[in-house]
């Protein structure tokens, strides 16, 4: 799901400067790319509770 940085900032009570907003947008794109990699993975094992 694409994150709207302005809406998310408002919901979280964060104030973004223009410089900060630009960097946050770049980081959100990086995270979206990472999330897509996880989405594409098809682990042989079923999703389960993590426990050592």
């Amino acid at each position, binding site marked *: *799901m694409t*994150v709207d*940085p302005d809406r*998310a*900032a408002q919901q*979280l*009570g*964060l*104030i*973004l400067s223009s*410089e*900060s907003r630009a*960097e*946050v947008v770049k*980081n*959100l794109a*990086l*995270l979206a*790319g*990472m*999330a897509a*990699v*996880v*989405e*594409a*993975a098809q*682990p*042989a*094992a*079923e*999703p*389960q*509770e*993590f*426990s*050592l």
Partner: protein
Amino acid sequence: VSRFASAAAMAAAVKGGRVTAVSLVEDALDRIDREDGRINAFTQVLAGRALADAQKVDDAVKAGRDAGPLAGVPFAVKNLFDIHDVTTLAGSIIEADKPPAAMDAPLITRLKAAGAVLLGALNMDEYAYGFTTENSHYGPTRNPHDLTRVSGGSSGGSAAAVAAGFAALTLGSDTNGSIRVPASFCGVYGLKPTLGRLTRRGSYPFVHSLDHVGPFARTVTDLALAYDVCQGPDALEPDCTTKPVQPVTGLLGKPVTDLRVGVLSGWFEDTASPEALLAVDLAGEALKAKRGVILKDAEAARAAAFCLTGHEGGTLHLDDLRHRPGDFDPATRDRLIAGVMQDADTVARMRRFRGAFLAQAMALFEKIDVLIAPATPFPATRIGEPMTELGGKQVLVRANAGLYTQPISFIGLPVIAAPVLTGAALPIGVQLIAAPWNEEALFRAAAFLEREGVVGVTDPAVQPELVH
């Protein structure tokens, strides 16, 4: 006793009356005073307290009492560990306003009880969110092997202090590679034990579900001594294991012929630099490792760790992100903000994937005891240069130094980062990785490699100004 002597040799000399703990500590303090201006490993030196503690060790030796396995050994800790009466900075200026810690972290207490003497607190990336220790508030920690290069992070001060011979042992923390990356860059040993093996109480958190703590050292024996001293349950820390202590120091000489060893391929070699591949080759050859072992979905595990880190870290600091955004390093702040903005479904998917990935790794450990992978994709990069070449592309150092460590800590596996003697000027390490709770196999493999001359710590001779 040389500044680069092992902790075991220092303790033996103190207990044998050949040197006093006070003189060891005085020498260490003198070196730090003369040389740390160039390296910047320490953020606080506790000289008076260290000398008083060293005197107590000498008094014990004089009185014929057992001064402990680490008698008189100088050590230091990443500044996210609580030190009694010292403010825990966690690499930030926000925390500098907080009151001093009421007590030592339990791992410090345990090391002191074993006779080790605390010298002070060490530099790190802000809130442990980084791989270079280029801290905008406290300055970069420079690599003792090349002062123009980073020490790695986030436990950069911990690795650099050991490499420079300021302390024989240090403590660090590792969420995504923060022990293993600086160990590789600075050419020292680092242990990231199984998640939950060592108590994290009294350490400033970063990502609760991924945080580990562990030691750095100059020999495998020293790493084992520190690890054994630090083991043990902690009734006040619910995430610390109640499993019996499993000492490893006495097992280092055991043969390794029964160990099944494999070299991780795929994600762990596709983009690695020639230096990283050489390090893995040397370690694999010595351990007669099976080649081409695949840990499926490692890239996805790294990606999931990346996302979870941003979310949990951002959530932890949300209040300060709202009220004191200008007091963060902007690079830390904007990553934390993006992390906390991720939606709940995404985060839940990362957590579910974690269990599945662990199951896949456990299937691999039915056939293999120790896996080998690079600790870092490249050796230490230049301070102030955010980009480096990897796999023919320019990539961000900060986002990519942990390419090979993140999938492993994501599922809490124990790892020793061991410096491989490649003959190159810059150090680089390998990860020795085992199934959960099987630190023993790692220590035996690392000790074997050290005996064979494949891994080991070299003095930072390229910096003659450090060796007087």
